């Protein structure tokens, strides 16, 4: 299991290949990449704050639970903080399993919990000002399916 909380950019393709190379026994590899999106065309930057003492611990707890629920060969989580421009990668998860259903379910579980239980906060800086991204009810609701 590898968890990286970092300020620097990362290369999702290179990470995916490196991850796959370490799990040669697993036939199914799923990845999710989150990208800063500029929905209304006015986004200048996305500022991501986190709680350094808690972040890695919280993510490890989520990944441990995923590994307990599904048969996984390995898990990768990368999450950035700092100020990101539109189009930059925010984070990625990758899961590997012998079974595609397990790889998919674990990746979705990781994403649902990272959204609402990992201590990150996003602030959108637009041309008209800045505001904290509000947690959405549907993200909290997504946890109830697990």
């Amino acid at each position: 299991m590898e968890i990286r909380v970092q300020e620097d950019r990362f290369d999702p393709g290179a990470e995916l290949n490196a991850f796959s190379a370490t799990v040669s026994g697993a036939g199914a590899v799923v990845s999710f990449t989150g990208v800063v999106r500029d929905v209304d065309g006015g986004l200048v930057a996305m500022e991501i704050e986190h709680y350094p003492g808690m972040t890695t611990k919280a993510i490890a707890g989520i990944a441990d639970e995923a590994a307990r629920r599904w048969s996984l060969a390995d898990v990768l989580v990368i999450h950035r903080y700092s100020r990101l421009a539109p189009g930059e990668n925010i984070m990625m998860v990758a899961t590997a399993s012998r079974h595609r259903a397990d790889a998919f379910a674990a990746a979705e579980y990781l994403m649902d919990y990272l959204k609402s239980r990992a201590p990150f906060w996003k602030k959108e800086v637009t041309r008209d000002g800045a505001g904290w991204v509000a947690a959405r009810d549907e993200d909290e609701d997504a946890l109830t399916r697990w």
Partner: protein
Amino acid sequence: MIDVLYFAWVRERIGVPREQVDTTAATVADLVEELKAREPRYEAAFADLRALRVALDQELSDFDASLAGVREVAFFPPMTGG
């Protein structure tokens, strides 16, 4: 003495990311009341506890949790990772 940390708009309203607080509060809710009594900026930050989350020693917890043995309390809005 307890370390109190603030994140996101809680940090912005209170004006500092962390501070040391000399308190004998038994629970998180008691600590919140003490802070609110200090200055309007705390009043503003803690106006609606339903909009806040709390972590004790880096674990998510509740406002009625005990502070016994706790060294670090963090207040923040619901998380928006991913």
